[in-house]
């Protein structure tokens, strides 16, 4: 091994950290200058409303991927039903604002509570299942809740709900950013507590965890509820931001798969993996969608990306930046050899 090869990960990590810190500072502070000010200063990035939209979407997926990471990455229960929490959060805000005339801020506080309550109810039976059974049962939750909403006239049925339009790119960007920060901080905090170690123990070996005194049912359900609350919060913000919600835009299973993919590509079970994955993938997806004839090609792109990530980098990119491995042909070949027939 040559010394350059060994020093490289350190060097990479430092660069990545600096770039990340700069990017974060830019993302947080730049919008404060407001669109008008940015226009005068000639900052191209912020004059464009599209970029605001993309930045807000990225922040939303950071929150969603981090939320999924708590149940899927830390606890090892691959939930395909998180989109139900997103939809429930969105519909909670939607119903309270349109039908009850609540102020948005108050309704937004209720959204995570409803999502967490729902997680508690379905978590108790479903978290007894494992592997495929848990995955598909939760997939069913997402589909079924969406279908029930789609058939309930009080919830707008298939027409959906229209919320009063609030035009403020800035406010929604900061709200989503706030949700993302809360999600990441929650993950960080969990990993530093007894609770977090309990979750990791469950992921590694549930029986062993139970034997050493982890109350597995309580831990799993609690993790599920926390994930649901974070997802529901993002859903609530989304409802007011998009000002129109229906089954298709808040209960899309592909959104759920996107959050899983982001967490997995970034590095499931880590604090910053889902963040890196969400930023990278959402930018790729937006680029594909922006490339002309729209949705169909972006879906094909997403599918191919999904396959490529799963086949070649199953341990996530954080594996490279954490200095544990280097991205090389040898790494890809070895990954292939370990998992293929």
């Amino acid at each position: 091994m040559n010394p350059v090869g060994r020093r490289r990960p350190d060097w990479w990590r430092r660069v990545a950290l600096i770039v990340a810190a700069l990017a974060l500072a830019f993302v947080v502070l730049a919008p404060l200058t407001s669109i008008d000010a940015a226009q005068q200063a000639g900052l191209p990035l912020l004059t464009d409303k599209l970029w605001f939209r993309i930045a807000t979407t990225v922040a939303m997926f950071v929150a969603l991927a981090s939320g999924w990471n708590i149940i899927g990455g830390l606890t090892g229960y691959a939930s395909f039903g998180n989109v139900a929490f997103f939809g429930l959060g969105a519909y909670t805000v939607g119903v309270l604002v349109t039908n009850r005339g609540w102020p948005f801020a108050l309704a937004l506080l209720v959204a995570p509570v409803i999502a967490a309550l729902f997680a508690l109810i379905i978590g108790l039976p479903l978290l007894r299942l494992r592997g495929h059974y848990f995955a598909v049962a939760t997939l069913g939750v997402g589909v079924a809740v969406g279908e029930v909403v789609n058939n309930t006239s009080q919830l707008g049925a298939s027409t959906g709900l229209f919320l009063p339009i609030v035009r403020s790119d800035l406010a929604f960007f900061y709200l989503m950013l706030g949700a993302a920060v809360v999600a990441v901080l929650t993950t960080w905090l969990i990993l530093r507590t007894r609770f977090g170690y309990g979750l990791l123990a469950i992921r590694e070996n549930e029986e062993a965890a139970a034997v050493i005194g982890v109350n597995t049912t309580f831990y799993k359900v609690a993790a599920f509820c926390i994930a649901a609350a974070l997802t529901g919060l993002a859903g609530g913000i989304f409802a007011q931001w998009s000002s129109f919600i229906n089954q298709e835009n808040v209960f899309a299973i592909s959104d759920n798969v996107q959050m899983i993919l982001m967490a997995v590509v970034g590095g499931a079970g880590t604090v910053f993996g889902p963040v890196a994955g969400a930023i990278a993938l959402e930018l790729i997806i937006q680029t594909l969608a922006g490339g002309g004839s729209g949705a169909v090609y972006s879906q094909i792109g997403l599918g191919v990306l999904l396959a490529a990530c799963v086949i070649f980098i199953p341990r996530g990119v954080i594996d490279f930046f954490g200095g544990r491995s280097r991205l090389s042909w040898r790494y890809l070949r070895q990954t292939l050899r370990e998992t293929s027939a």
Partner: protein
Amino acid sequence: MSQFTQQVVLGLLLGGVYVAVALGFSLVWGILNIVNLAHGALVIVGAYITWDLFTRVHVDPFLSLPVDALALFVIGYALQRGVINRVIRAPLLFTFLLTFGINLVIVSLLLLIFTGDFRSVTPAYSGSGLHLGSVIIPYIRLGGLAVALVLAGVLWAILNRTRTGAAILAVGADRDAAQLVGVDLRHIYALTFAIGAAFAGVAGGIISTFQSIAPTAGDPYTLQAFAVVILGGLGRVSATIAGGLAFGLIEVLGQSAPWLGSGYANAIAFVVLVIVLVVRPRGLLGRLA
């Protein structure tokens, strides 16, 4: 009363379709330990082939079923050999994500080729049926059930009466041991998936005769195939038949309840799924492995 009998008959006929859809799904799951989220997409590919042959060259939909099977067999073999074999030893989540990606690609390609318009196959006999007293049995549904039972018989014969079938079962029981006695794992994996896909294609051909098809019409069938396998239990052809017929009954009777409606097909599937999973995690007829 006669209305109830009619509902039961329709439920069993619908159940036949679910048997056809679930056979391949169950085979792939049981042998390869893959829950194939692209199964519904493969079903719809079969449906489009039947539709294409029917509208262009006026081939009777039931005669085009072998073409569906052959085409999907080739597609399935290539998919497993070229793509899914690469992650077959990875954790469950990865095969799940991979098959979802394949599903996305297939559905998008179908959208590009056939657009999102609803298509239907309408042979001359599609409206008529057998009158037994006050109960009417539509011919196409009856044909569908018959094809499903033939498929089940074929699968049973392949698995239990051929050398290849023995190899497939051996791989399902213990991959490493099967390899030790000289089974070519990659080939058997691909072959198993190809058979599953071929069955999906035939199921799609049947579905095209009584339902309008669109590229996304396959997604519910994946969930329903899963529910059927859970209901019956994994690992036996007879269990899939029982599960499929039972599920068809539950769905038709559930939807005929006055306070529900046809919009709740997936919700019913899900509720059945959860109840069975929680009460009997191995399925109603499954072996206690």
